[in-house]
């Protein structure tokens, strides 16, 4: 067994840009969630 995780080729995935594209999409999705919740709070919360 190797101690390193990237010693085998990645299996293909049918997503634009492959795995890299999916990961970038997920990161954008994460930041988008923060932005939406920030907007949500700023707009609806008025104590």
């Amino acid at each position, binding site marked *: 067994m190797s101690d390193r995780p990237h010693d085998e080729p990645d299996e293909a995935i049918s997503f634009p840009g492959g795995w890299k594209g999916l990961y970038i999409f997920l990161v954008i999705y994460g930041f988008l969630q923060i932005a939406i*919740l920030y907007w949500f709070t700023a707009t609806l919360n008025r104590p």
Partner: protein
Amino acid sequence: MHTIDWLIFALYMGGTMALGLWASRRGKDIDAYYLGNRSLPWWAVGLSVMATQASAITFIGTTGQAYNDGMRFIQIYLPLPIVVVVLCLTFAPFFYRARVYTAYEYLERRFDTKTRALTSFLFQCSRGMSVGIVLYAPSVVLSVILGWDETLTILMMGVTTLLYTTKGGVRAVVWTDTLQMILMFIGVFLGLYLVIAKLPEGITFSDAIYLGGVANRWNAVDTSLDLNNRYTLLSGLLGGFFLMLSYFGCDQSQVQRYITASSVKESRMSLIMTGFLKVPMQFFILATGVFLFIFYQFERPPIYFNSAEVARVEQSPARDELLRRQAEFDQAFDRQRELSFGLVEARRNGDAAEADRLLAERQAAVSRAEQIRKSTAELIRSTSDTPTNDVNYVYPSFLLKYFSGGILGMMISVIFAAAMSSIAGEIAALSSASMIDFYKRYFKPEASDAHYLRAGQISTLFWGLFATVAAFLLGSRGTSLVETVNTVGSHFYGPILGVFILAFFVKRASGTGAFISIILGMMAVISVSWFTKVSWLYLNVIGPLVVVTAGIILSLIFPNRPKPDAEMKNSQ
């Protein structure tokens, strides 16, 4: 509960048991029992990952927390999509390709036996405690709803879950989790719809949103930099990142799920699914709690949601004081309700001046009612031998009072599904850690598949019984159950994550260095927790920081010795 509610509940319990036993029919060795023969589809694994994480506490505690405190708890989940990317790039393929049964098994290959044993032991302490609370939570629901004895409920929950988990291992857990998670999704949306549908006539969705806003309940993001403030964007992004990384990356109850997938690709897909769905799901659960708060602006809430405690005080010398406060509360609430209707009307008519006046008056009335509620809670606590609160009673008591005809049975089933999926997942993980990391490693390294399977089932049974005893012992703790679980977990999560970071990313890290640094990390976390008021979320940052720093320094003092080949073989 009506007959139809009981029927639905019985259908759920029977269906889950049948599915669990059906999934148990295949596989008669330890690979099948702990890894499901690595043949499970990603969507089932993904739902299982989510179901294990979402316990009954998620439904009962989180809605109660949002009722009192708003949406801000969601901030700890915000780093999850980024955490999932880290997991997909490192932890998931690494564990999968290492073909380990437990996450901690790898630590022996990378470091030494003592580091593996200590980390696995810490995991078992942490999960062993939390599984008790997870089992206790639904007993709270039934104690309120059915008037059942909590002991009986704990036993019923524990025994049912234990039956299919012991017999079928991880395969039974994943397939029952799948059913339970689907039920939970239905429950989340049904629950939200039910609360909104119960808003009084004349109060629109827009009015409800407005009232939630003026009560500071839509506080999903808090940009304060105060380290003592429990839930802020900073504590969520920083502490939440390490908490999620540790939980999904190093906690056997999660790792065991995604190493059951049929390939690394499927394993990653299951995590990505969680990354996409978790925050929206938490959002809707918290929103249910906020709408519940808005509903109780118009419908008089109990002065204290734990009716059993109220009934106890009514039989005590504090009865007259309780009745006096109840009368004051009723009066304050009536005024608050009247002003709430007036405020909504003024806002609708576009009368800004009148709305401002009513808003100020209403805030005073709300504060008055809240003050009476708090002082009553204090009165109840002062007459109780054990700590008590009513956060976890808010949602179940609403369901009981306003619903029947099948809906109540459905929602009770959802809460049970949430509880059972977490209990099963955690018991299976605890069983694999004690069995693989201790029994197989130290006591019986060479034995037949049948022997290990039998030992695995006994180990599962042991942890189920342990969880039941822990439920009795830990259940009496009085803070919100959500926070109890997370606070207890936070003492262990950080140091465990730290040792995996050392293993994955610090090439020169040595076994002795890692071992001592875990102990130092634990001491640091406990010291900060005991002697400061820093939010518990930051404990998840302090733990890995101390472990990694100490690990790097100590590895220079105690460098690695080359491992003999025989030792490498024994570690497997």
